[in-house]
């Protein structure tokens, strides 16, 4: 899927860095992109996680998270990129333990993002979203 730089992707093809905690995975981005210092970046990352209702997973690594927690971390990583479009790629492949359309909708309500969220999913999952 060729997407330009203004798209933040949440995809099963883009895993978290395995030896970093959820917080570090998110804080990495402000450090490298916004050239914030570590304390400020950690604060931003923690704030974002708290906003999504998952500040308890900050110290967990990829292998210790449930699929929902992993998805939330990936989403936070996408959000902190501050790109105008957010694309969620095949959410069913990442959120197989929760009714995911509802879960995503709830997260979207918690996050204050100005851009658009787009979900790419298989056509046979269409009925799930209409509930």
């Amino acid at each position, binding site marked *: 899927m060729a997407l330009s730089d203004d798209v933040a*992707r949440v995809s099963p093809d883009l*895993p978290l860095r395995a030896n970093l905690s959820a917080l570090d995975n998110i804080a*990495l*981005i402000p450090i*490298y992109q916004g*050239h914030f210092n570590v304390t400020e970046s950690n604060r931003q990352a923690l704030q974002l996680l708290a906003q999504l209702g998952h500040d308890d997973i900050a110290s967990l690594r990829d292998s210790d998270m449930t699929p929902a927690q992993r998805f939330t971390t990936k989403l936070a990583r996408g959000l902190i990129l501050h790109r105008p479009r957010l694309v969620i790629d095949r959410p069913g492949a990442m959120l197989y333990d929760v009714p995911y359309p509802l879960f995503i909708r709830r997260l979207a309500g918690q996050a204050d993002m100005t851009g658009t969220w787009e979900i790419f999913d298989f056509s046979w999952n269409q009925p799930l979203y209409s509930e």
Partner: protein
Amino acid sequence: MNFLAASIESLGAKIVGWFTVAYGMFAFLARAGLLLLDPTTWNRATFDVVIKQVYFTAVQILHIFLAYAVVISWLIISIILSTARDFGLSEFASEMTIRTLVLELLPFLTALFIALRSGSAINTEVALMKVNNELDALAHCKVPPMQFEFLPRLVGGVISVITLSALAGLLALLVGYLAIYGVNTAGFEPYTRTIAKILDFQILAGLVVKCVLFGLAVTLIPVTAGLETPKKLFMVPVSVLRGMMRVFLAIVAIEVVSLALKYI
């Protein structure tokens, strides 16, 4: 005839393969070197990874490594001393000790130690990152893997090999003194003279350059070998195997070249 052609072809393929590997390695090294000079590289995150790398490569194993250095030094010095006494050459014993241990054996063993411990770990980790798409994810997030993952490993490896070799060398000098002169200050003058005679500026600079090359070999080669891994999980062991083989060859080659430069 067919057999001959086939073997020539396979030889050519091997040579091309080696050249590709070597080119990839040096191109990678050149990029790393350029980034090293780039001030934007040196943010807090890179620095943290360097510290982490030094911690895992050098500090965590320090006590084991130093114990091992003492045992090896003690053994080698005892062998040199008794042999030298048997042949009536005990005046050369301290010189031989310093030359074999401090200049050659300990840096070599340090490099092997770090290659076995950290080199293999780096190779596996980079291979897994590659296979798991973590590198693509980092690239998508505009976190440069070179600065975030690879350069700190190179820097940490070089720092670790230099410091551990230096510490082992100092320890070997101490052990050598104790073995030759015992616990007293009587031998301080002649020992100092021997040390001063051997360790001139050129030799020390050569030692540092050798340690830097060792440090690069035990980190750069595993990183590039890991990056070459095809995106198949079962290729990870193969990648580690190839990388470690290259590391070993590189360490031996560096040692042989340094010996040749010094004594030929």
